């Protein structure tokens, strides 16, 4: 139940990127906290097994740049741009990826 509330809360944050508020920005975030239109760099991910492999295959390697594009109508999954291609992830998986604002 607690987990659901967390996801629910995050889903409201799929809003426009607010670049102006830099002092608000925490130094390290997870990918779900990145707002629409913002760019960030991947630090590391806490995924294991198949998820980890799939993330690596799709270019979620440390230092890769990610741009948040949009979320689906119901707030999950997310779509993001990895250089020249676009990838979608569920929030469950995006929660495992630690990023740094670019």
């Amino acid at each position, binding site marked *: *139940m607690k*987990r*659901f509330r967390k996801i629910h809360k995050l889903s409201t944050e*799929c809003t426009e990127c607010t670049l102006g508020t830099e002092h608000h920005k925490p130094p390290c975030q997870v990918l779900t906290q990145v707002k629409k239109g913002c760019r960030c760099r991947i630090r590391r991910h*806490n*995924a*294991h*097994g*198949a*998820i980890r*492999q*799939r*993330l*690596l*295959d*799709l*270019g979620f*390697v*440390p230092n890769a740049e990610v741009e948040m*594009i*949009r*979320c*689906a*109508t*119901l*707030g*999950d*999954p997310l*779509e993001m*741009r990895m*250089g*020249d*291609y*676009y*990838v*979608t*992830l*569920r929030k*469950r*998986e995006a929660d*495992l990826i630690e990023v740094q604002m670019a």
Partner: protein
Amino acid sequence: MKSRWPDLFEIKAQMSSPKNNISIGLAGQQNAGKSTIFNMLTGASQHIANYPGVTVDKKVGNYRDEHGRVEVVDLPGTYSLTSFSLEERVARDFLLREKPDAIVNVVDASSLRRGLYFTFQLLEMSFPVVMALNMVDVAEANGRRVDSEKLAQLLGIGVVPTVGRKGRGKEKLRQTIRQTAREPKAKGSLRIEYDRLEEHIDSVYDVLSESKALAMAVPLRWMAVKLLEGDSEAFKLLNHYHKQPENVIELVRSSVEAFEEKTDISPGDYIVSCRDREASRIVDQCVEVINTNTVHVSEKIDRVLLHRGLAPLFLVLTVYLIYELSIVQGYKLTFLTWPALAWIRATVAGLLPDPGMLQDTILRSLPLWMVDSVNTLLNYVPIFLILFALIAILEDSGYMARIAFILDRVFHSFGLHGQSTLPFILGGVFTGGCAVPGIMATKGIPDERSRLATILTVPYMNCLAKIPLYTLLVNIYFTASRSYVMLFISTITIIMAMIIAKILTSTVLRGRETSPFIMEMPNYHMPMVTSVLRRAFDRTWVYIKKVGTIVIAVAVCVYVLLQFPGIPDDRMEHYQKRMDAAIKDFQADIQGTQYADLLDDEQGLLDLLNISARYREAKLAASTQEASRAVDERYEARYPELFPLLRARDAESRAISRSLRNLANERTTLRTQIREETIVHSYFGSLGKALEPVTQFAGFDWKINVALISSFAARESSVATLGVLFQEGADENIPLEERMEREGEAGGNTPLHALALMLFFALYPPCLAATIMVKVQTGSYKWMFFSIAFPTIFGLAVASGVFTFGTMLGLSGIQAMGAFYVLALITAIGLSFIRDPGWDQGGPRYTTKQEFTP
């Protein structure tokens, strides 16, 4: 039991084969345009097979060049060659086992860096690789130019720029394939260095090379890397080939520990970072950015189609279009194709022994039964052709991935997947569809557990053949609130399907492999007509082949259960008497005419009846006046004495002809009644009676049971069987509604009975064709039986619950319906919040774990 891996002898045999005819594998990541390259290389000569033991399609094609034949196998599109997903294992097993002479690695030029990860894995397996650098035109439009010569030089393999959709680069690619296959080993190709891990790789390599068998079967450096990565399939290989796997496993374990202690990073992660460094080095040297910051065309389209508010609208529109075109229009098309199937049946019927007066021999009825069963399935072919073409368009255009994106959130709550949408729509979410194409469309779902759950829940949708029974019951019992009840039926099925999906994924399917929803959003492409048509025909053909073989066997079983032990003698006598009376009437009519002698024995009469039936059919089939005249001439020539009765010209023969028609009608009626009474007395019929003590809790008497059981062969028959069972009054031409109502009132049937029946019918097991499809798609009879048994028990439980509680609380049909609806809705919403057992703290759990003890 035969091992999955070839033994030494087989490997040697493969190595010494002549090399003018070669076989190559086509490998690459999803969305790299692999199938367009496959079509470009092979043209029309291709077919679909299956990889042994799994339901993954294997496309095989071939072409000739100046040296000989080249067989091309299209491997499943995978991002990587690990052992995490079924497709990856299938692809890797194929490469290791078949050892193709060359591998064409299709890479999307737009995402070269990611494609290189895959190329590196192929090179590490020491395969002779040719790279088809595909969609270079799209990459340039997006501002990226790749220097293919530089790339070839860095990788040490042939690189051919191609545009598969336009056929560009075909000859060059074929030449390079031949050239690569001729060179015995991939010499000078890039070797990825793993710096600090190298010493461990070397020591593992040394231990591995002690085994000659292993060295023959797999490339050892790759094996060493895979073992250090902790790949589960690599450990299986090791156990299979190596004489002392324990020593190797021990060494790997200690190496991994030592490495992790020294570097604080797992070998797996380290390997990835080395590969990534190498890939970015190559990309930096080969890719020229001619235009930065372009917004892709696809992204521009998605700003509209995937707009947060508008996306559902476009989705509904697309779904409606598919439904309208395939199910509605396809159904209309079946009226055009049905005559062809009817002609086949008539031809078969003509070859079999003639029908008897009241009953046919098994030599006639069984083959006809089988033809009918096959025809029922072939009847869907037009629907499938349209459907598969539309699915191919959705796949090729890239919108399929978007559908999954939009709806994943909903389905995911119930253990399903975004791509479960299409199967449910085809199954008939709201207005009626067919479970057979629905189950077939589950093929694309990447998540094994969701795929099985979808297969098992699609049959709960409202198939077209369920509608007549609903209509019948609603017209009898719910005339006042017809629209509410129809709304109830169309929405309760999806609610129940979600509940069942959740139950199944949390229980029986619990241990099944799931995969994360991490998907590349492909670029939009204009679908190509040839590729769409080819896929539509291929898939339809696979359906015909697979279903055709199984259906014959199942049809025989159902035939026996529905026809034996047969109608009791006293009932048969009763029918015989009625027939005799009709014959006497007829004979009285022809007394004193010139035909009396001709028709005085029963055989002569039977022949006449059969000839006249055939004549009428032939006349109906004749569409033009000439054809009709030809039929006349043919029958006149063959039966000169009887022809005046078939086509009456004078008053006498007209009168006899009328009398003959009466006789024929009586015969048809009696035959129908006998056929249906046979069902009542059959094993299925007895089963219906035997089940009455159980089904009484749901309010079903034995008549309903028989109707439900017999409708398993085809849903359409449920109403027909009920028609037989509620026969009193049939002669007075009272409609079935009234007959059932009248008898229902006498027997105390209420709308509550009807509600229980409708609920059971909604949850009823899939029909024969759909269960066969379940077998085909799951590859196991176990799931086929499960798909029959579970809905029966569950449906009965629900129907009994509603009926028993409804009776206890004294609810009316509508009240019980409302109460049940609210209850089901609450259950579904409640279940959607329950945590999926497949997820634990770190995310979904996988059956393929990385362990050191295989």
